[in-house]
C-alpha cells in the first residue's frame, strides 16, 4: 500500500511539473496574468512531493519490503541498515529519483535565494526547470519505475546490494555527485531565459554565477570522493582510471569551471555574454550526456550488456529536446546584451578567455576520446581499440601546464590591460624557492629525487606562489588582503596541493606482487612487510579470509588487515585493501589469489603524498562553496 502511495505521489509530481513547465511561459507569451502561478509556493509543493516519494522508497528499503521489485533487486535482510538506506540509490531506478530531487532542491534554492526581481525572468527559469524535471519523471515512470511491485507473491529475501557498493563512501558519493550534475540545470535555465529576454549580460551573469559555483563545488566533492573510494575499495591502489564513468563526471566539471570563470568576466565587465550562454548550455548538456551515457550501456566494455537500448533512446530524446531546442534559440536569436569594452592581450579578460579555451577544448578532447572506440569501430568496419589512461594522460599534460601557468599569473592581471609583466619574475622566484624547499623535503623523506616529477611539482609551486602572492606582504596588511580573496585562495592553493600530490605519487610510488606464506617477511622500500596470519571471519552478510599484515620501519610497527570477502546472497567476491595512513605516504596491501594451503598472492604498494590529492580537491570544493555563498549574499 505504501509503495503505491509513493507511486501516486510521483504521478502527481509529474502532472504538476507539466503544468509548471507550460503555464508560466504561456502567461508571458499570451500576456495573460490569469495563467500565472505562485512559483514560490508551487516549487515548495513540488519539492515536498518528490521528497515524500523518495522517503517512501527509503522506507520500503528499511522495512525490507521485497514486494517492491527495486528493493528485491538491491537489498537483503542481512544488509546493514545504513546500506539499506543507501541502496535507495544503488541502481538505475532509485538513483533517478535522487536526480530529480536534487534538481528540485536547486530550483527551490534559486527561487528563494536569488536577488533577481524580474518576475518574467524568474517564471521562465522556473518553467524551464519544471520541463526538465517533467522529462526525467516521465522517463522514470515509463521505463524505470522504482515502485513496481512483485505481486501476489513477493520474494522472501532480496538479491542484495552489489558488494562493491557496500561501503560507507557509497552513502555519500552519489548524492554529492548528483547534486553537482543536476545543479547545472539552473545556469542552463538562466541562460535560456537570458536568450529569450535578451537580458543584459552583467545582470543575468550575476544570477547564474553563484549556482554555477555551488554546482562545481558539489561536483568536485563528488568526484574526489569517487576517486578516494575507488582507491581503497577496488584494491588496485589507483585513484583515477579515465574510465568512461569517471570522464562522464570530469567533463561537466571542466565546463562548470570554465563557466564560472567566464561569468566573472561577464558580471564584472559585461562581455563574453554570448559565450557564457553557449557554455551554460554545453555544461548542462554534458551533465545530461554523461550521466545517461553510462546508463544506456553503450560506453561499457565489450563484455557488458546494454542496460537497455530503449532507455538509452528515451534519454537521447530528452537530451535532444532540451539541447537542440536551446541551441536553435541560440542560432536564431540576435543577442546584443554585452557592454562595450575592449581589452588587451595582457588583460584579465584575455586571461579568462585563454582559460576557457583550454578548459573547453580539454573537455571536448576527453569526451571525444571516451566515445572514440565506438566511432573507430564504425569507420573501420568492426575493428576495435581502447582509449585509456595513457592517451588521456598524454593529452592532459600540455593543457595542465598551460592552465597552471595561467593560474599562477591570473591574480596579478588587471581588467582591460595590465601595466606591466614584472610580476612574472616575482612569481618565478617565489616558485623556485618553494620548489627547492619541497625537493629538499622529498629527498629527506624518500631518499630520492625523480626527474619525471620535477615539472609537475614546479607547476604546483608556481600556482601556489601566484595565488598566495607572499611578496605583497611587505606592502599591505596581508591577512585582510587574503581575507578578501579567501575563496579563490582556497581554490587555487587547493589545486596546487592536488597537483603536488599527483606529481609525487606518479613518480614516487612503489609496487610489487608478492607470494607469501604465513610467517614470511619481505623488504619493500623502507618497510619490512610481514604476512603474520590468515584466518576466517564472518561479517553481517559475508564470509572473509582476513590476512594480518604488519609494516615495520625505523619509526613504527603497524598491523593492517586485508580481506577477500565472499558475499553470501550473491556469491560475489570483493577484495578489501589494507591501508595504513602515514603522514607522508600510504602503505597499501591487497590480497590476490589463494595459491595453495595458506599461501596467498599480495600486491603491496607505497603511495607517497596520495592524500594530498583529495586534500587539494577538498580545498577546491571549499573555495568554490565559499565563492558561491558570497555571491548569493551579494546584492
Amino acid at each position: 500500500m505504501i509503495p503505491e502511495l509513493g507511486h501516486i505521489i510521483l504521478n502527481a509530481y509529474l502532472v504538476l511539473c507539466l503544468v509548471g513547465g507550460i503555464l508560466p511561459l504561456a502567461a508571458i507569451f499570451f500576456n495573460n496574468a490569469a495563467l500565472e502561478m505562485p512559483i514560490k509556493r508551487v516549487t515548495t509543493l513540488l519539492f515536498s512531493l518528490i521528497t515524500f516519494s523518495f522517503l517512501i522508497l527509503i522506507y520500503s528499503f528499511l522495512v525490507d519490503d521485497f514486494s517492491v521489485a527495486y528493493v528485491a533487486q538491491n537489498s537483503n535482510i542481512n544488509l546493514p541498515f545504513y546500506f539499506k538506506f543507501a541502496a535507495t540509490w544503488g541502481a538505475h531506478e532509485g538513483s533517478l529519483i535522487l536526480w530529480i530531487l536534487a534538481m528540485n532542491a536547486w530550483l527551490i534554492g534559486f527561487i528563494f535565494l536569488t536577488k533577481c526581481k524580474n518576475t518574467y525572468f524568474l517564471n521562465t527559469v522556473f518553467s524551464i526547470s519544471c520541463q526538465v524535471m517533467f522529462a526525467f519523471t516521465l522517463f522514470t515512470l515509463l521505463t524505470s519505475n522504482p515502485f513496481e511491485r512483485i505481486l501476489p507473491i513477493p520474494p522472501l529475501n532480496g538479491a542484495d546490494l552489489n558488494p562493491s557498493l557496500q561501503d560507507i563512501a557509497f552513502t555519500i558519493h552519489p548524492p554529492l555527485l548528483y547534486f553537482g550534475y543536476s545543479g547545472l540545470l539552473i545556469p542552463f535555465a538562466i541562460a535560456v531565459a537570458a536568450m529569450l529576454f535578451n537580458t543584459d549580460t552583467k545582470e543575468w551573469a550575476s544570477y547564474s554565477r553563484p549556482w554555477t559555483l555551488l554546482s562545481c563545488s558539489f561536483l568536485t566533492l563528488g568526484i574526489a570522493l569517487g576517486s578516494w573510494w575507488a582507491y581503497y575499495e577496488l584494491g588496485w591502489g589507483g585513484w583515477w582510471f579515465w574510465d568512461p564513468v569517471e570522464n562522464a563526471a570530469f567533463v561537466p566539471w571542466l565546463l562548470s569551471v570554465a563557466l564560472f570563470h567566464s561569468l566573472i568576466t561577464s558580471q564584472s565587465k559585461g562581455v563574453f555574454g554570448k559565450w557564457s550562454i553557449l557554455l551554460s548550455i554545453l555544461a548542462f548538456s554534458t551533465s545530461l550526456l554523461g550521466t545517461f551515457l553510462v546508463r544506456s550501456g553503450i560506453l561499457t566494455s565489450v563484455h557488458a550488456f546494454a542496460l537497455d537500448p530503449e532507455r538509452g533512446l528515451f534519454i537521447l530524446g530528452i537530451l535532444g529536446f532540451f539541447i537542440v531546442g536551446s541551441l536553435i534559440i541560440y542560432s536564431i536569436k540576435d543577442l546584443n546584451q554585452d557592454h562595450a569594452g575592449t581589452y588587451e592581450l595582457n588583460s584579465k579578460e584575455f586571461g579568462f578567455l585563454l582559460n576557457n579555451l583550454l578548459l573547453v577544448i580539454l573537455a571536448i578532447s576527453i569526451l571525444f576520446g571516451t566515445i572514440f572506440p565506438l566511432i573507430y569501430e564504425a569507420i573501420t568496419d568492426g575493428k576495435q581499440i581502447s582509449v585509456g589512461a595513457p592517451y588521456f594522460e598524454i593529452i592532459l599534460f600540455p593543457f595542465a601546464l598551460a592552465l597552471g601557468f595561467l593560474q599562477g599569473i591570473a591574480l596579478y592581471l588587471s581588467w582591460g590591460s595590465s601595466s606591466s609583466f614584472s610580476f612574472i619574475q616575482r612569481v618565478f622566484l617565489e616558485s623556485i624557492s618553494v620548489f627547492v624547499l619541497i625537493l629538499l623535503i622529498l629527498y629527506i623523506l624518500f631518499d630520492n629525487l625523480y626527474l619525471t616529477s620535477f615539472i609537475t611539482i614546479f607547476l604546483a609551486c608556481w600556482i601556489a606562489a601566484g595565488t598566495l602572492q607572499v611578496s605583497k606582504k611587505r606592502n599591505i596588511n596581508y591577512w585582510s588582503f587574503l581575507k578578501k580573496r579567501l575563496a579563490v585562495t582556497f581554490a587555487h592553493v587547493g589545486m596546487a596541493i592536488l597537483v603536488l600530490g599527483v606529481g609525487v605519487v606518479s613518480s614516487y610510488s612503489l609496487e610489487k606482487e608478492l607470494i607469501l606464506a604465513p610467517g614470511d617477511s619481505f623488504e619493500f622500500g623502507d618497510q619490512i612487510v610481514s604476512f603474520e596470519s590468515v584466518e576466517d571471519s564472518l561479517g553481517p552478510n559475508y564470509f572473509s579470509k582476513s590476512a594480518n599484515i604488519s609494516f615495520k620501519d625505523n619509526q613504527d610497527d603497524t598491523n593492517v588487515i586485508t580481506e577477500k570477502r565472499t558475499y553470501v546472497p550473491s556469491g560475489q567476491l570483493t577484495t578489501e585493501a589494507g591501508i595504513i595512513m602515514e603522514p607522508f605516504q600510504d602503505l597499501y596491501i591487497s590480497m590476490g589469489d589463494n595459491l595453495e594451503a595458506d599461501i596467498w598472492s599480495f600486491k603491496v604498494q607505497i603511495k607517497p603524498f596520495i592524500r594530498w590529492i583529495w586534500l587539494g580537491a577538498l580545498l577546491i570544493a571549499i573555495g568554490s562553496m565559499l565563492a558561491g555563498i558570497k555571491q548569493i549574499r551579494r546584492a
Partner: protein
Amino acid sequence: MKKLLDTLPLVIFVTLIIVLFSFLSNEDNQLETVLIDESFPEFSLTSLTDTTKILAKSDISELPALINVWATWCIACKVEHPFLMKLKEESILPIYGLNYKDNRNKAIALLKADGDPFEFSIFDFEGRLAIDLGVYGAPETFFIDKSGVIRVRHVGVIDDKVWKEKFAKYLDE
C-alpha cells in the same frame, strides 16, 4: 558569417546525437578476433584423455572443423553442450575440443557423463594455446576451413541461431 558560427554548435550537437543513436542499436558484445584469415597456430599439448599422447596442429586433420573452447567450470558450456552433441550426431562437421585451464579428471568425467562431442580434446592447462588464439574465456568456438585457416570466432553459447547466422555459410564453401 556570424550567423553561420552561431549555428555551428547546433550542427555539431545534432551530429553527435545521430552518432550516439546509431551506437545504441549495436548489440554485439564480443571482442572481435584479429585472427580472421590466419592459420590455426602451432601447438604441442597433451590429449585430455591420454597423457602420453602429444597433439599438434597436424592432428587436426579432418577439415573443415570447429574448435570449441570449454571447461568444467564454465556454466554456459553446459548450456551449449547439447547443440555440440547434435552437430556430432548429425555428422555436420568434426569438433575438436580445447579444454581450457581445467582439472583433467573432472573434464574426463564430464565427457563420460554428458557425452563427448569432440574428436579429441586438447588439454591446455596453462592456457597458452588459448592465448595464441586470442581466447579470453569460455565458451568460444572457432571455425577452421579446409586449409586450416580461421574464418570466424564466436564468443558465448553456440546454438541453432548462432550456427545459422555465423557459421553455416563457411561450411557451404
